[in-house]
């Protein structure tokens, strides 16, 4: 087993670090949260810079414009980006982590040749059209209907949790092409151009406030049959391919960012006097949140939990590289534990902030400084996105119990 950089890894790390140090300042500050057009432009600008520098699609095959590098280099790249505070994939998330890898695995040569370079260059933005209001954990019960009409599918239905729907050029869409077949059998995976007539995208407000999510209503949207990926009615299997990518590594950059946020929380705790309403021998002394053994130790526990998630990621990535993708044990264990760690993180953050845990934004202080309260509270709320999205924690436990431990299936 080896974790430290090999010589070539170390060279690559140095190169990435230097490039980030030079180019991040050029990119400038991200736009205010909620300004979606600016966000799209910003993310596209950054993606273009990455592409030009050879850092787009680090682990994608060179044939499609990727770097064709090792999984190890991909992780190094992500770790360096997180440490430097570089933007994450943003609007490119679905294209690069879901649709792209699915196309690489399942699409025709024509589909690949058209879409993959555009995704890497940041030219085309993708969104996901999987979940429906009535099909959440039980995704296969989806009802959005596609009826064949000549060279087109005519699609009617509604989708939810369409991330970056407002910005997308294409949608990876799951539809029901055979309503008579068993529920997993009649599904197909389509590429839907978002400029097709009949698509209504409405922003979806989440518990975090404004969000990148949308609801999407489809009214007789005509999609060319050549936009089918995989075979007709074989879309469930294709979607499972998408999930095998999501399960393993979609959260890596997010994990790395969370690890830097623990450092931030510790820094905040060291500077923030902690309320002592009660009178006692130490009343009135300035004692920071960090001086509180319970809070400090709990921050250490959260850091240890996230460190372990980083180790598990490296194990999962090593196994995936050995062939066959991330095994369910590793993927579900990651998702389950990571969501608990983020909930835990949020709970500690509330204790650090204590009576200043009152805003989803930074709190303005006198003298022009501010207290970064909202950032940590938003992360606390975000924990639900992890414990609910892409298979709830309950679903992950079923997967582990049934597929890994061999316990009887749910009846």
């Amino acid at each position, binding site marked *: 087993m080896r974790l430290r950089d090999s010589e070539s890894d170390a060279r690559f790390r140095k190169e990435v670090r230097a490039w980030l140090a030079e180019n991040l300042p050029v990119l400038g500050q991200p736009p205010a949260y909620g300004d979606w057009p600016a966000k799209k432009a910003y993310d596209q600008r950054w993606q273009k810079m990455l592409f030009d520098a050879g850092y787009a699609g680090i682990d994608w095959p060179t044939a499609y414009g990727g770097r064709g590098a090792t999984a190890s280099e991909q992780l190094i790249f992500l770790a360096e980006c997180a440490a430097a505070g570089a933007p994450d994939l943003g609007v490119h998330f679905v294209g690069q982590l879901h649709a792209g890898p699915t196309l690489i695995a399942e699409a025709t040569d024509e589909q690949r040749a058209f879409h993959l370079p555009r995704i890497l260059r940041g030219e085309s933005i993708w969104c996901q059209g999987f979940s429906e209001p009535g099909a959440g954990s039980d995704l296969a019960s989806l009802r959005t209907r596609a009826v064949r009409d000549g060279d087109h599918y005519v699609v009617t239905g509604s989708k939810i949790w369409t991330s970056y729907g407002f910005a997308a050029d294409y949608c990876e869409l799951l539809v029901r092409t055979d309503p008579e077949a068993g529920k997993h059998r009649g599904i197909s995976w389509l590429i839907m151009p978002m400029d097709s007539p009949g698509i209504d995208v409405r922003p979806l*407000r989440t518990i975090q406030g404004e969000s990148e999510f949308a609801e999407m209503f489809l009214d007789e949207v005509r999609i060319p049959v050549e936009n089918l990926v995989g075979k007709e009615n074989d879309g469930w299997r294709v979607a499972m391919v998408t999930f095998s990518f999501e399960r393993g590594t979609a959260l890596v950059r997010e994990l790395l960012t969370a690890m830097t946020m623990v450092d931030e929380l510790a820094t905040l705790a060291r500077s923030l006097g902690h309320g002592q309403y009660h009178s006692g021998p130490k009343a009135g002394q300035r004692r920071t949140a960090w001086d509180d053994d319970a809070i400090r130790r709990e921050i250490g526990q959260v850091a240890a939990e996230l460190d372990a998630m980083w180790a598990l990621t490296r194990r999962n990535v090593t196994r995936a590289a050995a062939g066959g993708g991330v095994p369910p044990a590793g993927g579900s264990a990651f998702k389950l534990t990571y969501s608990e760690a983020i909930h835990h993180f949020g709970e500690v953050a509330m204790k650090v902030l204590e*009576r200043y845990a009152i805003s989803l934004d930074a709190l303005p202080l006198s003298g022009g400084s501010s207290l970064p309260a909202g950032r940590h509270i938003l992360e606390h709320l975000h924990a639900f996105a992890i414990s609910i999205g892409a298979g709830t*924690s309950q679903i992950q436990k079923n997967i582990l119990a049934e597929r890994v431990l061999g316990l009887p299936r749910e009846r």
Partner: protein
Amino acid sequence: MHFDLDEDALALQATVRDLCAGRLPLEATRDWTDAATFDRAAWRALAELGTFTLTQPEERGGLELGVAEAGLVFQVLGAELVPGPLVAAALVADVDERVGAGEAFATVVTRPPAGSGPARAGGPWVVPHLDLAADVYVVDDEGVWKAAAGAVEGTPVPNPLDPTTPMWLAGEVPADERVGGPELARAWRLRGSVLASALLAGNAGRTVELATAYAKQREQFGRVIGGFQAVKHLLAEAFTRAEVASVAVDAAAVALDEAAAGDEDFASYDDPTFNPVRAIAGARVLAARAASQNAKTAIQVHGGMGFTWETPIHLFLKRAWVLQNAFTTPEEAADTVAHSLSERKAA
């Protein structure tokens, strides 16, 4: 000993619950964000039921009931997610009849201890509902102090965590009019803490109800999700937390009523388990945990819908997060309980 709700208490709760359901429904509450949109008429109707004057003597328009009854009513207010400076109204009714009658608003804050917060001097002050309030009351070790709300230079908190509890930060609250001494301050801290815990306990109970109702109708995998043992157990645990929190709050409120006036340490009682300060602190530990954990559970049971702004559970969670630090914090309360423990050597 008779430690259960009698018919009068149940009727009182039902009256308040009916008013809330009619005049202060969740759908309206979620759109209240500031004084301009605040439904003063509904608030006054609530006050007219005696909500804020339950413990006041008859000559001050009160019902001469105990903190126990006030706690039961505040559990209903918590369950209905009623917005506004509820606890402040019930405290300030002691000294300002207009506030008790719902004709004016007040807000009550505790002085930031020296050395707390981001500034070495302590602070800033956190003041809820400053736009609504006529007066700001300050509780500290020396007593209770009053300032005109207009005299407080507050900065509104951007994007408040609980959208129906607007907040202000202030460098200073010029509270120079003394309205009571250390005894009133102590009484307000204890009563304020119980009433905030009552709101939390009610909050905890309601999110279980909402999640249970959802689990009975939402179908996935061809059956209602409430039929999955995992969901059943999550809800059973949440129900239990709410029940226990509610009982703990009731016990704390009753203990406060039963404590003889002037007996500062409540130490002259025969029953060794009788200790109001400890009961009040313990109630906060359990009510805060129940409210935040139950709302979390309810969001999880709602799945994706629970993550939407539209589904109201998150408002309960956010309210709980803000309330849990009112007059004490769950951590400080646990410490208070610890410090109340007796010396006892193992046999």
